[in-house]
């Protein structure tokens, strides 16, 4: 599938194309598009990253305990909220008091994926999570992080004992199963996020086209055609809502699954 070039790709390559091409040439990597060596998803990732940094730099001086503003309350809602689905709520539920040390990593990944997923709603932008490299990168980070946290907590031998199962006489069976299921977690995290965003994006764009039908056929002399053309925007709105829902839900699942894996890796034996 040829790469989809958007205005972000063009502008980012104008800014950073030459250094990127030089870096790739130094590493003996051939870019797939010589005119735009930085791919669209990397440009979108950089855009998301820079926008988030700018937003938080803007928000930081406006944080106050006595009179919190709207933006502060919204951001705090991502941490702790009344439905117990904030990042810190989920961590405290699974890990107790030691949950807070994992908040930076888990919160950052969740926030990044949330903004990446939602960026596809803006009509001329592409979600970077719809290219397989981006969810793969996030999944690799999560995988390395929870295994490293487990090793740091229990030591390498102690962490290895987790894979042997509850009783010693089943360990010959449990070890390959546990190793395989841990490797499968990497695959499932990647594919779940990637395919959900790919499919959701496709449906969103496809049904956005239904909006055009209104302007084409509303003045038609046959009242049936006129009425049916008014149905187009209804389905469009339904699929826009579905896309927003899937985007937020996938970011939520990508937050809660690392928390579950962390609680399994770091948790104490009963």
């Amino acid at each position, binding site marked *: 599938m040829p790469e989809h070039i958007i205005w972000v790709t063009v502008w980012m390559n104008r800014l950073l194309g030459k250094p990127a091409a030089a870096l790739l040439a130094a590493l003996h990597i051939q870019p797939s598009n010589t005119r735009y060596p930085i791919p669209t998803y990397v440009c979108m990732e950089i855009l998301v990253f820079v926008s988030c940094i700018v937003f938080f730099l803007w928000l930081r001086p406006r944080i106050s305990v006595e009179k919190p503003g709207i933006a502060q309350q919204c951001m705090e809602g991502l941490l702790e909220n009344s*439905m*117990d*689905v904030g990042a810190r709520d989920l961590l405290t539920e699974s890990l107790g008091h030691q949950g807070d040390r994992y908040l930076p990593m888990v919160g950052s990944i969740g926030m990044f994926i949330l903004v990446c997923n939602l960026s596809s709603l803006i009509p001329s932008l592409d979600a970077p999570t719809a290219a397989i490299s981006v969810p793969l990168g996030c999944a690799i980070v999560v995988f390395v992080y929870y295994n490293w946290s487990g090793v740091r907590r229990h030591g390498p031998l102690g962490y290895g004992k987790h894979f042997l199962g509850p009783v010693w006489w089943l360990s010959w069976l449990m070890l390959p199963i546990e190793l395989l299921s841990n490797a499968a977690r990497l695959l*499932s995290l990647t*594919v*779940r996020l*990637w*395919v*959900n965003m*790919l*499919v959701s994006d496709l449906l969103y764009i496809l049904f956005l086209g239904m909006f055009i039908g209104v302007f084409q056929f509303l003045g038609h002399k046959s009242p049936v055609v006129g009425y049916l053309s008014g149905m187009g925007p209804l389905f469009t709105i339904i699929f826009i809502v579905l896309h927003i829902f899937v985007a937020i*839900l*996938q970011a939520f*699942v990508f937050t*809660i699954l690392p928390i579950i894996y962390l609680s399994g890796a770091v948790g104490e034996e009963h």
Partner: protein
Amino acid sequence: MKKFAVLLLVLIVLIILTPVAFAADAPAAGGTNWIAISAGFSMAIASGACGYAQAVATAAACEGMARNPGATAAVRFALILGLVLIESMALYTFAIIFLKVS
């Protein structure tokens, strides 16, 4: 009666699929496009199984919420999580189709 229907269905599927065992690798040009055919069937089976599993999950969640309305928030949380994980199983099939169908 139900067991007989299942057995009949399995036999029909086997009869339809035996020519595949005798055919060599389909020639690239002019042969039947087995990838497209199997893509269609596998996606349909995956979506059907996913639909059934999500129906069971939703039914259990509704019953739980009806029996204990105070636990609605917890049940709803478990329901959404379960539905997303089941959905992703059907999407793995879509991923392999996406990768294999040129």
